[in-house]
């Protein structure tokens, strides 16, 4: 009996490893398909629309509220040390370095990643992917590659919008409502936030863009082609993307700001 559970553990481990291998092979094929979007840029435009434009509202509104909350919370903490003028620094640093890329990635995983998984999964379940293959069209290049690059391009832009809107939200609350000095808000921010911080944030969100779209596309492409399979894949896509984003965020933060 104990041996059986050990065997089950081994089977599970091998299965996970095999999935990981397939996911990497798929990513490789997707990335190599870049020629397809150079030949048909319209495919890419449509996907930037699906992933970027359609996520704009939720990202913008979330950014505004996160910035406003940061402004409120930060003010009460900083005011205790008599450092309310540093509010701008606090809001901008946390948004640009962390919250912008991470929260945007989580929102995109929920808003666009799940839709991608469901779309690809249903295309597989309804034999549309096989149909394309039979028309001598490579579904990886035609269907997956534009979605991948669309996500990778849209993510940093969305994260930048999130951070910018968030800073404005913090500004409205801090300067508008709580009476922090406007000059101090901006000047301290500009003195303490580096362009390197902004660059690090962009690099992070590029990595997250790869992670979120890759997981979403793989889950869809690898789905069990039944309605239950697609629904499980969609859930898994969001959960795995969120976990991997948070884990990778820790590693990236340690690499970028640790040294």
């Amino acid at each position, binding site marked *: 009996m104990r041996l059986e559970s050990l065997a089950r553990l081994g089977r599970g481990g091998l299965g996970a490893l095999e999935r990981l291998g397939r996911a990497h092979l798929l990513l490789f094929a997707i990335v190599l398909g870049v020629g397809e979007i150079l030949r048909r840029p319209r495919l890419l435009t449509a996907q930037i629309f699906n992933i970027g434009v359609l996520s704009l509202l939720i990202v913008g509104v979330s950014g505004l509220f996160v910035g406003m909350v940061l402004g409120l919370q930060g003010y009460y903490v900083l005011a205790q040390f008599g450092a309310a003028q540093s509010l701008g620094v606090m809001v901008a640093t946390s948004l640009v370095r962390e919250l912008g890329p991470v929260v945007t990635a989580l929102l995109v995983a929920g808003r666009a990643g799940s839709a991608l998984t469901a779309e690809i999964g249903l295309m597989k379940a309804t*034999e549309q992917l096989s149909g394309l*293959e039979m*028309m*001598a*069209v490579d579904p990886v290049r035609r269907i997956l590659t534009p979605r991948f690059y669309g996500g990778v391009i849209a993510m940093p832009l969305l994260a930048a919008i999130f951070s910018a809107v968030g800073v404005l939200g913090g500004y409205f609350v801090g300067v508008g409502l709580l009476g922090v000095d406007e000059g101090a808000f901006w000047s301290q921010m500009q003195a303490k936030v580096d362009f390197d911080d902004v660059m690090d944030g962009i690099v992070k969100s590029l990595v997250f863009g790869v992670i979120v779209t890759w997981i979403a596309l793989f889950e869809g492409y690898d789905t069990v082609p039944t309605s239950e399979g697609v629904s499980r894949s969609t859930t898994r896509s969001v959960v795995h993307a969120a976990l991997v984003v948070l884990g990778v965020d820790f590693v990236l933060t340690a690499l970028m700001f640790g040294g």
Partner: protein
Amino acid sequence: MVRDAGNPLPSEPLVDPSSPAAQAVDGSVASVANEPEVLVRIRGLSFRRGSRVIFDDLDLDIRRGSVTAVMGPSGTGKTTLLKLITGQLRPDAGRIEVDGEDVHRLDKSGLFRLRRRMGMLFQSGALLTDLTVFENVAYPLREHTDLRPSLLRKLVLLKLEAVGLRGARDLMPNELSGGMARRVALARAIALDPMMILYDEPFAGQDPISMGMLVSLIRQLNDAAGLTSVLVSHDVRETASIADDLYVISEGRVIAHGTPAELAADPSEEVRQFMDGLPDGPMHFHYPAPDLADDLRTRGGR
């Protein structure tokens, strides 16, 4: 999952190579093997899914210009056979040649070149749901040719006319009935004027009228355009009415081969059971399982 080794499988006599049916098949295959008009030649094909054997040393030939039907009970891997012929799946052993090319030795571009000359009609139609009927039929043309828009439009309308759906060109796939979707898919499959069309269960779930339309359509297309058609089905009557050549597969092997008339006269029990739709016979209604009484007495497990 419960497969008791001690339990004799009811199907064992079928795969026994000494049975008269198997010998008859071997003989007939040998007689057509060297004819040049064979378009698809399958030799020694074996394929398994997990531990389940789907095909076991299968030989099959499809003659150029014929309508060849592959029949068999559900779950005998008829769709799998089509996927093997088109290179979507790889066999564990054996060789499949289409028009002289070994499908599974081709590289990707070679395979895609070959597939441009093959059309396949999926059970569900497999239309692209975000494109109109017109765009679906135009898709392979746009993909593989550089036709002027006016010429492309004419071609698409002609193909749609051939399946009787020229008027439905602006509909979306979700506005079509199952039979219409299949006919649109047929128009798409013939868009590039292929040499061969593979039909996966074209009659499944169709009302009698659209079934009749599809039957005559398949025959007409085959004769008018000089195609080769491969038909996978378990609808005996419709299939027999248009096929030149019939193969009956069971348990991973060909158990009978011949013209519809020959098969109708075949005395062997399993062919009779399938052709006449008898509920019981050599092929059993039950999936292989241990004895019912033993199974019920067993405690625990499932």
